[in-house]
């Protein structure tokens, strides 16, 4: 048993941490994260140059990573730096393109010249494929909702039902759709994608397993991002408690606050543990169970840490100007992405009962 990362992973994690600390401060982040196009194409190119996208797929598929731990070290740093670039969208797209041997697209995304997004959810379908209503064919019609990274994608991977009752994966050029982009409340972009008899290229007519695997990679990424955010919040809360004086002393002297800091610090260690376990299971048979367990725990720990961080900062934690507020907001909202904590619990219970 060894809980140390490999040299390669430490290097990518260090260089990403340095890059974000130097090039992506909170003020700048908030400027791009809330104004169209809700990300920065030049930063995206630099991240690609750093090899961040290549780390998300295996060597066989054209990258140089692709393991669960490759994904988690990258997203932990993206969390620590509160990066609003559409990395989640492109992670899932990369995994799908790789799964179906679309090496041209894989190369394009890894190189930073193209971006893609997974258009899967609908108004009443937010976590499982079974809820999806859109039907597939040469032309697609209907709406895909809250498509992460849909604001900045060149290609959309659309999930729709085939005539044979399977889940098909189709590629649509973003330019052919009506794309209504917006900022998310925690920064970064998403879009409503409206398809109206839009031309689509069939990539696979039986893609459910690959889509679920890509969604699980996305869930793992969100969990790791949460751990990076939580580490950051613990450190800022700790510093703030030592700095802030009330009643003539640092509020860190008050046990009511000390014990709450300890309690959420313990939950952060638990969160880190479950992400390590889930990372080790991304290619295992029981992947879905472990990913769902991780995201359930992350949802609970994240809510605790985010709410406590805001509360323990007092009024300052309520302000737009203060960076930790945005971390807390992101930590809260990522629970809603790809199935929230209750939804993951349903998955775990179904899988355990099966």
């Amino acid at each position, binding site marked *: *048993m*060894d*809980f*140390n*990362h*490999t040299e390669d992973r430490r290097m990518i994690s260090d260089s990403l941490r340095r890059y974000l600390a130097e090039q992506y401060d909170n003020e700048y982040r908030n400027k791009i994260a809330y104004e169209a196009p809700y990300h920065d194409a030049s930063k995206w190119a630099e991240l690609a140059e750093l090899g961040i996208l290549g780390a998300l797929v295996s060597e066989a598929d054209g990258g140089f990573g692709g393991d669960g*731990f490759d994904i988690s070290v990258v997203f932990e740093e993206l969390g620590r730096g509160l990066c609003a670039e559409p990395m989640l969208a492109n992670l899932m797209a990369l995994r799908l393109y790789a799964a179906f041997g679309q090496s041209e697209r894989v190369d394009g995304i890894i190189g930073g010249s193209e971006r893609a997004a997974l258009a899967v959810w609908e108004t009443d379908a937010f976590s499982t494929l079974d809820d999806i209503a859109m039907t597939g064919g040469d032309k697609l019609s209907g709406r895909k909702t809250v498509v992460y990274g849909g604001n900045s994608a060149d290609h959309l991977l659309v999930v729709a039902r085939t005539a044979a009752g399977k889940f098909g994966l189709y590629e649509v050029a973003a330019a052919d759709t009506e794309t209504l982009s917006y900022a998310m409340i925690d920064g970064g972009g998403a879009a409503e994608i409206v398809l109206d008899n839009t031309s689509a290229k069939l990539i696979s007519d039986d893609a459910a397993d690959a889509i679920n695997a890509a969604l699980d990679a996305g869930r793992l990424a969100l969990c790791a991002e949460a751990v990076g955010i939580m580490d950051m919040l613990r450190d800022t809360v*700790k510093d703030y408690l*030592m700095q802030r004086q009330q009643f003539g002393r640092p509020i*860190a002297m008050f*046990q009511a606050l*000390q*014990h709450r*800091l*300890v*309690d959420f*610090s*313990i939950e952060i*260690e*638990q*969160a*880190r*543990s*479950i992400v*390590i*376990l889930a*990372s*080790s299971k991304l290619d295992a048979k029981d992947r879905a169970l472990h990913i769902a*367990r991780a995201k*359930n*725990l992350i949802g*609970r720990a994240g809510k605790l840490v985010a709410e406590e961080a805001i509360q323990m900062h007092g009024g300052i934690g309520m302000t737009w100007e203060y960076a930790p507020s945005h971390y807390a907001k992101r930590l809260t909202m990522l629970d809603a992405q790809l199935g929230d904590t209750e939804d993951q*619990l349903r998955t*775990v*219970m179904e899988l*355990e*009962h099966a």
Partner: protein
Amino acid sequence: MDLNFTPEEEAFRAEVRQFLKDNLPEELATKVRNGLEFTKQDIEQWHAILQTRNWLAATWPVEHGGPGWNATQRHIFDEERSLANAPTVVPFGVGMLGPVLLKFGTEEQKATILPRILDGTDWWCQGYSEPGAGSDLASLKTRAIRDGDDYIINGQKTWTTLGQHADKIFCLVRTSTEGKPQEGISFILVDINTPGIEMRPIRLLEGGYEVNEVFFTDVRVPAANLVGEENQGWTIAKYLLTHERTGIAGVGYSTQALIELKSLAKKLKRRGKPLAEDPIFMSKVTEVEIDLEAMRITNLRMLSGGGAMGTVSSMLKIKGTVIRQAINDLARRALGPAACPFPSEDVLGNLAVAPPEAANNAASYFNNRKLSIFGGSNEIQRNIITKELFMG
């Protein structure tokens, strides 16, 4: 990152499993499964069985009769022990006094005392807490005054677990009132049959008898029974608190309790369906299961050497006991009104309203409220972590 055990570790696990299969008496396994009390003979029998392989004192080196296991081996043993429903080892001799003597004892103390712990000649108990010194242990008042070659001890200890079985007691006593309270404490060994000692039982809320008050009136103890230097007792006590304690998170315990809970939920019915199919109840079980899964990794991570030792064992203690208590609570509630009867021979036998393995669930729940109180309450653990968070 590699979460797999090595082939050697897996072989060790198989060896432990086989040993338990061949040597664990069925009556003891049943008592563990059903949450029943052990007699002194039960525990002595189990200790003797383990010592046939030198497995009793898990943390001791080979030269002193231990197995010389590393932290991972101890973890594996603890996991297998729990899964087999084998009793835990009573820690006061092998887990507490042993490591103290190995670190602070004289050669003579090691040579005379350690073998008697291993062969069961001496049952040790602990004299730390006092009525006025619980979380604030350093304020203890039991006085030991030097008189020639002896100390004379006067005072009172409390919460002495299984003192009713003990031959000996190790105590923290005040040998000086100068300076800070921590600086005047000594660690001393006392024969329980010395004149002037009186042991009185304290009955616990669930009805059981496992702790005692111990009164000392002019108890004369040879000065040679001092461990370490005079006034070094606090250092020794702190060493014990932060000394690597593989089992402190109780992962094995909780794993076993959770298996029992899930199998119970399959037997019990609510509204015509097994409780195991009730989403409201099972969602709680599942979340505890997820917490325990994370705890298992947290425990292994911390054993493999991350973080400051005090913080590590305190974190493991807090979260580990919270999880164990949550499982106890669910097991009690799973029974509904069948948890109500006070455990007695009738209720556990022919009048049973609950499955036999669950008849003691409410009692176990109440008894295990102790987990977050003893060994340094969870609030004290939070203070320890706070110190390291802000100073470290």
